[in-house]
């Protein structure tokens, strides 16, 4: 899996992911009433092919209604269609590993991270994390396209001040799993953070749009998120030049180089 050399603790993280049941890749198809969809489609096709009179057109209309109802009856149609698009077919998992050293003891770093509701402070695409209970949390992310994704994550291994591993659960918009390890450096004054995140990105044209967001920049996005985390932990603020004066007019921008993240 990882392309980087491992520490003992990251090996523990890998083991935690492997020993947990395989990530549930259900495609969202169970939400569709297939009898209704197939029967309705057949009726619609029959009516449209014959097209000989009012009865045939009525069959076609009823068939279309049945098919629509088959798609939409269990949940809102957009949700099932979104999940259908997200999970039909498969692409290779995106596997991102990155590291950062934080000049704070592992206890502090772990404690901040373990309070999952802190995470949106530095994960810039995460809108909210809500702790459902001690091990489960509900995540909402917003992509630059405006699309919002949500998933429920379960902590599958939790070793205080050392390791946190999670996996998204059945019914998530996007499947992901990963772990973060916290290892002491500088005689315990600092923490080496290794994050490893695996996404199972969606396929299809719709999925490709999302994957194009995830794939090339994902490592950099996660790296920048970790850097924000480090900076908040160490200094309490994020450095910026946004809002400082320059001799550029407003439409020329403020000269700030955009991060590689979208």
């Amino acid at each position: 899996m990882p392309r980087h050399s491992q520490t003992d603790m990251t090996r523990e993280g890998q083991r935690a992911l492997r020993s947990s049941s395989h990530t549930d890749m259900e495609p969202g198809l169970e939400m569709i009433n297939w009898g209704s969809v197939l029967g309705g489609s057949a009726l619609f096709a029959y009516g449209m092919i014959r097209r000989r009179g009012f009865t045939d057109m009525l069959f076609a209309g009823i068939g279309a209604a049945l098919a629509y109802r088959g798609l939409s009856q269990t949940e809102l149609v957009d949700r099932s269609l979104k999940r259908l698009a997200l999970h039909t077919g498969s692409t290779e998992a995106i596997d991102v590993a990155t590291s950062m050293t934080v000049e704070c003891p592992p206890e502090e770093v772990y404690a901040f991270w373990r309070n999952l509701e802190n995470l949106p402070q530095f994960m810039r695409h995460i809108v909210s994390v809500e702790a459902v209970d001690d091990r489960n949390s509900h995540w909402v992310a917003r992509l630059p396209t405006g699309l919002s994704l949500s998933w429920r994550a379960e902590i599958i291994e939790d070793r205080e001040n050392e390791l946190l591993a999670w996996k998204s659960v059945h019914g998530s918009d996007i499947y992901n799993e990963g772990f973060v390890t916290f290892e002491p450096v500088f005689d315990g004054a600092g923490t080496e953070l290794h994050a490893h995140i695996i996404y199972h990105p969606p396929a299809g044209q719709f999925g490709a749009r999302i994957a194009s967001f995830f794939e090339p920049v994902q490592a950099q996005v996660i790296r920048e998120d970790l850097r924000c985390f480090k900076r908040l932990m160490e200094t309490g603020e994020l450095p910026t030049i946004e809002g400082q004066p320059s001799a550029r007019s407003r439409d020329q921008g403020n000269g700030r180089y955009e991060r590689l993240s979208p």
Partner: protein
Amino acid sequence: MKALCWFGKENISLETVDDPKIINPRDAIVRVSLSSICGSDIHLYDGVIPTMEKGDILGHEFMGEIVEVGDEVDNLERGDRVVVPFPIACGNCHYCHIDSHALCDNSNPNAWMAEQAFGYSPAGIFGYSHLYGGYAGGQAEYVRVPYADVGPQKVPEELTDEQALFVTDVFPTGYQACDVADFEPGSTVAVWGCGPVGLFAIQCAYMLGAERVIAIDHIDSRLSTARSECGAEVLHLDDDPILESLSEMTGGRGPDVCIEAVGMEAHGGGMVDWYDRAKQTLRMETGRPHALRQAIMACGKGGTVVVPGVFGGVIDKLPMGAAFGKGLTFKMGQTHVHRYVDPLFEHIQNDEIDPTFVITHRIPLVEGAAAYEMLQKKEDNSIKVVLTP
């Protein structure tokens, strides 16, 4: 407010821009009382430092009075007279904890960009390209100072502004060059470049116990300052055979320490100089490292080459075989100004050095653009220009 702004190669002008304001809780706003043009600013004027943007406010050597502080700054108050070190440092990261403030992990908002260029990101710097953070500089009436609880240092009352100003950059830069060389008392130090950094390096070499300092430049007025103000023996780049002279002057051993206070736009001569100029123009090489090559060739066995001169990218044809064969040590980098502010204030208070000796021109900020041109062409015997808003 008025500020000197960069618009391209040899294109700097005085502009009216918005006043800076507090953005982060650890910021302060300084009303600039005195700033100066650094030799490294001339690299910007020459357009050889990448990632400058049109409209950037210049200047990383400045001092002034605190006029506003953010909520998290409790060691400064309105009216404090401060110098501001040119590297911006958070004070909390590992590098700040070991007093290597120019390597601060957290102050560069464009760290990702510097990581791609350098592998790891150095600290942000005022007015010195977006690779170093894109911070607005101090050749202006006001400047926003991030991490103000760490950077600005109050100036002892008995020092004048002119005496204190150079503690922001050129004085500690010359001092660090000697400090990191870690030479034995009685050593011989050779200094390439008699601009402000080179001149301070000469003074500091004597302060730290060097027996002889030999200065090299190609400008008569600067050599004469090196000799009369700093007590250096001097060699003229165009008239003296540098390598032979240095060998002769040291009994065939070569200098123990060679300080390269010139950087990426050294003046050389001959075919290699044309080669460097061509490659630099074509952006195939970002520096013309003539002085660095010479310093490596001149340095005695087991000696140390220190590079306070600024380099921005890639250079060619460094005599690594000579460096390897003679077992040289290399030291270089931006100056960790924060660690030197207090000791250097003490040296000034004890009358061991008066930093104002480098000042050749005192002009108002509004004439700053012309001063850049004068310094670039080394006209009017200029060495150091200070600007009053």
